[in-house]
């Protein structure tokens, strides 16, 4: 039997080269949007960013209209959004960070149990729930039954449920990287269980835990949809957790719906994006500089 050995290596090399360029082109297309978005926002948004932008609440339509028609910078800023975001994120962190850490440690300590497996799966499901649904939930639980009206508390509850799975998973994953010998050494010395947790487990994995918390914060800071259903928005600065408040992403939505305030949307979006991205980068930086784990 005669086997035909014919190699068309030239053609194969050509397709090989072409495929490589195709991959490079595809990767380039993927990163182009980030430059477009950052460039676009920076170019159109920087004009409005001044001190008043951070210290004054949002202007009303009329002020914006007069300024826009005379070509001036729109007065006012996003102070009411900043305080509202701060209030809700703070409240959500107070609930979600301890609860998330404890659940994460529980999952780590009881890895083999069936019950822990169920909790782990539930956490994964919770992480996949679209944020708008958490808005509905916070509306049903808090707006309808507790504060009887839109409130910062409802917004915080929605953000808490968003943060929880992120913190739980990062806690468990971080702890899994701790060498078990450290634990065993502590137990061998007769250290009680709870001391082992907060004198060894938590300090050793601190940078990992901080990364998880920062990532969770950067996720919820930009959330808009659940807040539309819960915190609603407010034109003035307010620190009352039972009353509606604004938030930076909510202000972007308000500005967007008012044709006179387009310039402010660019600035507010620029600010929000820069803030969230720096938090994101900071957490990655911590992660890459970890000492122990």
């Amino acid at each position, binding site marked *: 039997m005669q086997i035909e050995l014919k190699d068309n290596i030239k053609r194969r090399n050509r*397709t*090989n080269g072409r*495929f*490589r360029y195709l*991959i*490079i082109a*595809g*990767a380039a297309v*993927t*990163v182009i*949007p*980030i430059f*477009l*978005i950052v460039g*676009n926002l920076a170019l159109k948004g920087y004009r409005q960013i001044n001190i008043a932008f951070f210290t004054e609440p949002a202007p009303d339509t009329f002020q914006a209209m007069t300024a826009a028609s005379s070509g001036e910078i729109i007065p006012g800023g996003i102070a009411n959004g900043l305080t509202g975001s701060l209030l809700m994120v703070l409240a959500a962190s107070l609930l979600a960070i*301890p*609860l998330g850490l*404890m*659940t994460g440690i*529980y999952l780590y*300590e009881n890895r083999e149990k069936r*019950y822990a497996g169920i*909790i782990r799966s*539930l*956490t994964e*499901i*919770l992480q*996949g*729930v*679209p*944020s*708008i*649904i*958490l*808005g*509905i*939930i916070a509306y*049903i639980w808090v707006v309808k039954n507790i504060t009887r009206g839109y409130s910062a508390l409802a917004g915080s509850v929605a953000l808490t*449920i968003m943060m929880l799975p992120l913190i*739980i998973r990062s806690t468990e994953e971080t702890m899994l990287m701790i060498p078990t010998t450290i634990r065993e050494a502590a137990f061998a010395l007769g250290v*009680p*269980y*709870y*001391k082992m947790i907060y004198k060894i487990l938590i300090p050793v994995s601190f940078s990992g835990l901080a990364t998880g918390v920062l990532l969770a914060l*950067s996720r919820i800071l*930009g959330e*808009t*949809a659940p807040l539309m*259903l819960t915190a*609603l928005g407010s034109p003035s600065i307010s620190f009352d957790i039972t009353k509606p408040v604004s938030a930076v992403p909510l202000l*972007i*939505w308000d500005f*967007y719906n008012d044709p006179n305030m387009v310039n402010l*949307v660019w600035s507010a*979006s620029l600010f929000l*994006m820069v803030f*969230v*991205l720096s938090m*994101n980068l900071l957490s*990655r930086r911590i992660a890459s500089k970890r000492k122990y784990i």
Partner: protein
Amino acid sequence: MNGDRVTKALLFISSLIILLLSAGIVLSLTGGAIPAFKEYGLGFITSTVWNPTSGSEEYGAMPFIAGTVITSVLALIICIPMAFSTSLFIAEYYRGTRTAGILRSLVDLLAGIPSIVYGFWGFYALRPLLISTGLTDQGFGVFTASLVLAIMIVPYATSLSTEIISMVPAELKEAAFSLGATRREVIFSVVIPSARSGIVASFILALGRALGETMAVTLLIGNANLIPKGLFAPGNTMASVIANQFGEADGLKMSALIAIGLLLFVITALVNAAGKLIVKRFA
């Protein structure tokens, strides 16, 4: 010891809260959806009429289910070549180089941009561009929303498939190279077959993301309560109709919106579970 017992109890209680939270979410959604399902039965899911005019109120979820599925699948189709080439770039062609590291961080940055910023950018920067191509008059609609959605889900698809592709054993690839295969042939005959399930899972998980995306879609899809008639026709997704109409809803309409939320919850949970299952079983 007392401290031990308290600590163990605290840890257990916090895990119990997750259980209660999950049960509460399902129960509250179901409870809120009951009036709508009582009124329309399972026909609520298949009905294509959404008419909130009081007196002749009628609600059906089909326009939004269709809108969600069409935009998400289209977004996934746009996203696949981008994510695929990016992960091959990082994990295969320029593996371990500085360029790959930079590309990876840039793609990660895409995941950090808030949804509303994407929507706004799509509205003011991308929409005029699409209008100038002459394909669409208004620039709103399924295609615009899908395009932005695709950019948003690229990082999720890329990070997992990069990881899976870089885990393909070097021995396998070297064996193929030693037989005289070119790089492209190695990729198609060794890398992709052994990473297939992981790559599929990464795209399923990205799809799960796209299904629930709200703000960017709300700003771009055009908000028409009917099944989209074409690629450039306006529509509404399950998430965007909730975002648009929940604020002014009450009674039956609110229940219908919560019912849509319940359906969205079920769909995303199923899609995510499928993705996770594939990852666990094969990767």
